[in-house]
């Protein structure tokens, strides 16, 4: 079994990743973690122990909302969707991250 290099998620990034992966369409819990894993090419792996508490935290903040629907294989599943304030939050946090990443890159590449 091939073990790709895994990165521990820095504090606060999980929320942003969840919001981002919900930007396209509503998804259920497993699909969110699967998508994060796929897009990051397995570099980021979400621990289930933190995924579900994070989902509920975001729901409480009103950034995402949950609804019961049918999954691909027709099972009852809880789908999470971005709310209006969640989308705003995503834009704001993404902007902040990009700025931070750029600054980090500048710093690290400096000779």
């Amino acid at each position, binding site marked *: 079994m091939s073990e790709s290099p895994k990165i521990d998620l820095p504090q606060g990034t999980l929320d942003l990743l969840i919001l981002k992966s919900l930007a396209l369409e509503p998804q*259920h*819990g*497993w*699909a969110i*973690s*699967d998508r994060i894993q796929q897009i990051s090419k397995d570099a980021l792996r979400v*621990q*289930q*122990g*933190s995924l*579900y*508490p*994070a989902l*509920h*935290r975001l*729901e*409480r*903040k*009103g950034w995402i*909302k949950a609804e019961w629907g049918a*999954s691909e*294989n027709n*099972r*009852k*599943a*809880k789908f999470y969707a971005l709310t209006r304030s969640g989308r705003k939050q995503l834009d704001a946090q993404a902007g902040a991250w990009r700025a931070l990443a750029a600054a980090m890159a500048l710093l690290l590449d400096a000779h």
Partner: protein
Amino acid sequence: MLADLTHRFRALFRREAVERELDEELRLHLEHETGTRLAAGMPREEAARQARLAVGGFDQIKEAHRDARGVRAIESILQDLRYGARTLRHTPLFAVTSVMTLALSTAALATVLTLAHTLFVRRLPVPRAEEVVAVSGTRIRWNPDRVAVRDAERLRTLGPVSYPDYVSFRDRATTVTGLAAHYPTAPLFVSANGNVKEINGAVVSANFFRLLGLEPVSGRFFHDAEDRVPDRDRVAVISSNLWRSWFAASPGAIGSHVRINSVDFTVVGVASSEFVGTTPIPIEIYIPTMMLRVGYRWCDDALAADCAALQMIGRLAPGQTLASAAAELPTVMPEAWRHARAGENSGVAVTDLRGMSEDDNEPRLVAILAGVAILLLAVCCANLAGLSSAQSAARAGEFAVRLSLGAGPGRVVRQLATEWVMLGAAGGMAGVLLARAFTSLLAAAFFAADDEGHPLRYAFGQTPAIGWLTIGAALVAALVISVGPAISAVRRAAPGAATPRFTAPRRWTGAWLLGAQATAAVAMVALAALFAVSAQAMVSGGNYDGSHLALLRLRPRLLKYPPERAQRFQREVVERLAALPSVESVSLVGIGAVLDGGAAAIALPVWTAGQQARARFNEIGPRYFATLQTPIVSGREFDDTDLPRSPHVAIVNETLAARLWPDGRALGATLLVNATPHRIVGIVRDIRLGSRTAPSESWVYTPFWQNTEEIDSRLAIRIGGDPAAMLPALVREVNRVDRDVPISEPMTMPMRMAGLKRPVRIGAAFVGYAAALAVLLTGVGLFGTLSFAVARRTREIGIRMALGAARARIVGAIVRDGLVVVGSGAVAGIAAAVATTRVVRHLLYGSAAADWLYFVGAAALVVLVGLCACVVPARRAAGVEPIVALRCE
């Protein structure tokens, strides 16, 4: 924000649904994980195992999830509550005892708060009551001790004003609007519909009802035109009470005729039952100020400028305050007030209309009651703290288990505190309900009638704020009770702490608390006894005995009898009453009331013109002191030979005799009483009516029959048996002499004293209640603590017995343990009682000589109760069988 709330709400109250959903979600996740691995060609079992590894432990996820719900704290509180309820259900006796103890003590607190609110805080039951103010004249009171002028301002009292003065204020004041005049306590003899009775009426200006925002229940109030011309408009408004009792609430009452002090009036309206007056004496009938001459008989012309009969109330104009009104009103004061003499209005005061208190002693009384209530609550706290620590110690095993299962010490302490908070809430609520019963008892027992027998209405009402305050006090008490014992219990139960079973037998905890309870109990018992003795001393003590006195008031003045006719009538009444069986003697007074009186200017013939002193004064009939059983020190009392034509004579009391004739030659000397020379024929003992702190007063008495101007009188009738039972017969006999003369206030001296010195009786009842509870609690507390100590020391006692200790020694040790604590508490209690007595002596009557007896008696009582509490535990200890005790291990 809303999302957050609904989310938390759901997490809290739909806990199971939330958990179920989470379960479902996690299972689906696991399926997907397994699915991807199956799709990659992994065998089913291996795929399932890998997936489970990847997902991690369900329970950990769930736990983290629960934390994320943000209701962790509330959830664990709910858990504590459920657990607490279960525990309390298993120890019902403990729960009931604690709740009852808290209820009985917080009820006392709530009762005092209700009393204080009604007496000092509550406003009138009228719209926008906060704007209503009283405007009064102020005057420098006649002062018996001729104190220095700078102190005279202290003696400034509020006073009524004359009708012209009222009109002047009404028309000139701008900060207070709608100023109305009223005389709220007019004794009116009213006959209507076959009823005849002296009732309390009010003489009010036509704008009175408008000012207060009152609406009639039926008919109308006075028109302004009906209050313009003296004696013209004979209209009356009756109270709802009178309407119901005399007219059966019939609409026909409007327009009917009532006779008030022999003048015919027409009823025009019925007032609502909500507002019954500004004083505790409810108003039963209203007449306009222009009819003041009917309602006010103390001036020749009640509407004249020299007759101050009226009180004023008004509303603060918009934006005005008490202070701004108080600043303006002196500027519009009648000119004559600037040249006022002592006893006449010379200033203006604006006061809030708050509370029903009319007794200067009431603030002090309520303060004392509040102190007693707080002390009682403290005693209950101490008692329950002992119970709580015993209970915590008994549950040490349970705590140890919970602690070793991973509960934090804080959590266990909180669990215990939660149980007590539940008990506290229940106790507080029960206390609030109980206080309602207490206040109605208090109202019925002490606030139902005044010293002249008039019915009173205080309408004690418990406000919601008082209810919450009481429950709050119970909760605070519960926390105080529980947290300390809980912490120490948890510390003992913590792993590694020494197991209590193997520690050396220490002095049992709570000894201090028990001692303090005993101290408080002794102080309260002593105080209750002093109050009770004072209440008795007011009826008979201070050189008089009122226990067998009946009182009647004859008022021919209300029928405008001339003095000769009035005196003829009174002479005959006295003779006829004295002839009745079981009447021992009859006498009468002209001024004020029996035992009381007015004041007179006195002087010695040798003094220069204008030099004079003041003394208390009354005009009394023959046999007055025999009737009161006041000892004559020397000389004689008045008899039937002291008539208008015989030489003018006087009797002085010992204080006056000593003051004016230090050489002791008072008897036979001449004294000028109100400028008329009188020869002193007798010296009597001081009648002490005041409290212990009141200074002795100088008294001079002259014969009633030597004043040919006297019209009204009050009779004192000494009865062989029960005076209350004789009252109807006395009234019948007076009616036989003259059917028309109004007899008011047929009552007994004990009844009058009950109304007059209310604070003492309230103090006796309230402190008595607190004292009984405190003694009971001390006994129960000692019993509980000793029983618990014996139970814990069973093994130790067993070993001692096995080693040859005599049973008597074991019993002795237990009893000694108990008595040392209660005894030292009781000794401290005597000191506390002595100190407390000094604080309350303004409310105590009679001699202080026997006080020490009550102090020692109180201590003895508490020690005796303590001894009784020791008996059962001591017998239980003596009954320990060494073999059984050792086998217990």
